């Protein structure tokens, strides 16, 4: 050991350096490549109508991925988001159509319901100690069931103009849901990287016991993460109902897996404590680009699944190799 402190100034970050620091750079490049390839392969891909469609898709997948990332960062997992989307979608429609509540109230109540589901998840995980996988698996089944029970299997028709407006309005050509997603990203980024509670969320995922002994109220942080996740899912439910103009109980089946995949592709570590909003956003973008691009190229839906699986595999293996390299460095 040397007697003097090694004083190396931190490397100066080049333009956008902090933004693209570390593992997020890979997914950003992948997005650029995928976009270029699809755009060259089919002239319609980069056209405004298709970009708008992708923007709305992105809002759906992206919001879910963003919410799930909060949970994964604490070291948990949320399998319930797809079902919560469905429940929130029909619940908001039911409140609006059958209970006769004004559009805005119906939407607000649907979001509150999402938050309550999140609180229940959080309490189950922290107070009861039920593993996150099991806790949210229960909701995966039960919320879907509730959505079906509420509608008795039939779509709820006739939602109000606020719903349809969300789906139809564009500001400077950008669909409202896409703008909502961008706003959510900014908020999530501010919270995770610019507030101390956000840092504590990472700490809980990085080492819960160390965080607790350092005086962090770990339970509150974990509960918050589940609330964010379920509320995002509820918001997506409203967006989907708005897009379809009906409350449809069978929507969003399996979307939880897309959301988790987007998060992991974006560099969120499943072990907890690692992941950034930039990565998650680009992970979701990549997912949407591939989905949409393959459709436009008339690739069979079966093959689309394979391609998505391959992308996920690359992301996971890269992550594994990187952390193994890190472990080797420690020796």
């Amino acid at each position, binding site marked *: 050991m040397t007697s003097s402190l090694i004083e190396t100034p*931190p490397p100066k970050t080049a333009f956008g350096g902090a933004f693209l620091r570390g593992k997020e750079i890979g997914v950003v490049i992948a997005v650029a490549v995928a976009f270029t390839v699809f755009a060259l392969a089919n002239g319609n891909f980069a056209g405004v109508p298709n970009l708008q469609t992708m923007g709305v898709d992105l809002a759906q997948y992206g919001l879910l991925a963003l919410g799930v990332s909060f949970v994964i960062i604490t070291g948990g997992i949320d399998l319930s988001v797809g079902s919560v989307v469905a429940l929130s979608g029909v619940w908001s429609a039911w409140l609006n159509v059958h209970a006769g509540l004004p559009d805005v109230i119906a939407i607000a109540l649907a979001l509150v319901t999402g938050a309550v589901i999140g609180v229940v998840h959080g309490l189950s995980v922290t107070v009861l100690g039920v593993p996150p996988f099991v806790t949210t698996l229960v909701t995966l089944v039960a919320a879907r069931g509730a959505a079906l029970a509420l509608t008795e299997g039939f779509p709820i028709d006739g939602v109000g103009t606020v719903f349809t407006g969300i789906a139809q309005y564009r500001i400077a050509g950008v669909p409202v849901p896409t703008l909502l997603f961008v706003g959510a990203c900014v908020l999530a980024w501010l919270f995770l990287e610019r507030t101390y509670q956000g840092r504590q969320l990472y700490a809980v995922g990085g080492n819960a016991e160390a965080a607790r002994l350092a005086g962090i109220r770990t339970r509150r942080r974990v509960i918050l993460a589940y609330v964010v996740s379920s509320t995002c899912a509820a918001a997506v439910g409203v967006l989907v109902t708005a897009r379809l103009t009906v409350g449809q109980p069978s929507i969003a089946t399996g979307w939880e897996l897309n959301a988790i995949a987007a998060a992991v592709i974006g560099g969120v570590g499943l072990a907890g404590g690692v992941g950034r909003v930039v990565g998650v956003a680009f992970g979701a973008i990549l997912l949407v680009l591939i989905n949409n691009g393959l459709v436009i190229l008339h690739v069979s839906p079966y093959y689309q699944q394979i391609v998505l699986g391959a992308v996920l595999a690359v992301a996971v293996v890269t992550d594994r190799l990187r952390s193994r390299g890190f472990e080797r460095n420690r020796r």
Partner: protein
Amino acid sequence: MTALVDATGLRKTYGTVEVLHVDRLSLAAGEVVALLGENGAGKSTLVRVLTGATAADAGHVELGGRQLRNGDPAHAQELGVATVSQEFPLVGEMSVAENLMLGRRAGVGGVLFDRRATERAAGEVLGLIGADVPLDQPVSRLPVAQQQLVEIAKALGRDPKVLVLDEPTSALGPVESRRVIRVARDLAAQGRAVIFIGHRLDEVREIADRVLVMRNGRLVADLTPERATTEAMIRAMAGDEAEVLVEGDPPPAVGGPVLTVRGLEAAGIGPIDLDVGRGEILGVAGLMGSGRSRLVHALMGAVRTTGGTMSLAGRPYAPKHPADAVRSGVGLVPEDRARQSLLPLAPVRWNISLAALPRIAHRSWLDPAVERTFTDEVRKAVEVRCATQEQPIGTLSGGNQQRAVFGRWFAAEPRLLLLDEPTRGVDVAAKAGIYHLVESFAARGTAVVIASSELEELMRLAHRTAVLAGGRLVTTIPRSDYSKHALMTAANHVPEGAAQ
């Protein structure tokens, strides 16, 4: 009697420190040999050399007349050595029978798992130690004592001639300990040699045919049970009083009470009374399982207290969560860095600012520049050596990691700093640095409570040392009366009515 283990001229050096210097050691079949010594006396190094886990620099070991290939654990196993360690490497969710037969196969057929044959074979193994453990239960549901028995039985499954029990009773209560001791005696009676590493002297006297005492890597005493009085064992472990030198004194305590504890009780400890003043360093000594860590955690609000009152700086103090403690100006450097202190993948910066976040934040807002400046100043103050504070803390040495953990509390100038084994896993050279850090906290008026298994550390740092045994406070020894002898005698005192 033939010698099952015969070692000559064993030497082992780490850096410039000779940790093992044993000229002759021979163990006979049918005897239980207790190995005693302080932390770092060389017990585990000796055992690791005998079991092939560590290669000796010189010397050779014969097991049952055949020479052990130096540093080859598989060969040692082949020659009939088995070790039962303190932690339980059992598969919690698998049944007792499956654990006992792990890696071996019972019954006919190469592919299918034959439950009945497995349980029969496992039953035979358990029969060897006469243990009554339900075979079909998952191991995780068994009490610790039964897990320990399963672990011993598992080691016996290979029919070893030499069995090493590394502090097998440290996690056990008195009844279960007795059981393990009886098993050890039975095994010796079957013609095996048993090496029993122990901490509790009463136990050692009960079990051993011979007591070997190590100090500074050497065998300093080989006592028969008759001669192995508590007094004699402590004298051998502690060495001549003259050898004990306490270099340098801690800064004098400033005075004025900070922490007052009256009748504190928590699971396994208490009632305990303590007083710590401003700038005072209070040591907490005790054997393994005496409640050292638990006391520290109770003061931090990390374990639930069941009775008693505390006051901090004149105000009532009843932390229900470490967050309460931090807000009242208490900090903790836990015992196990990997599990209790570090965010291993996170940068040094995050690890330093972890406990200070609400303080350096503006309302909730965490300004990256403010944080960087803050952690960089702390990093320099506690001398964490790293290329940049953005590198993962896992890449630093143990000593530097520990300095960063100290740094967590440095800027806060806590009223009370709790330290649990502050130099564990820190190399000798870095220890002195940690000691200076502790003193610098005290010099600034922080009251320090330091729980440690290393007596030198307490004698070097603490103004007074409270000695725990069986969860109770036995005595508090002032600096002027320090001697290893006094501390060890107190630690081996079992208070009336305590749960041992």
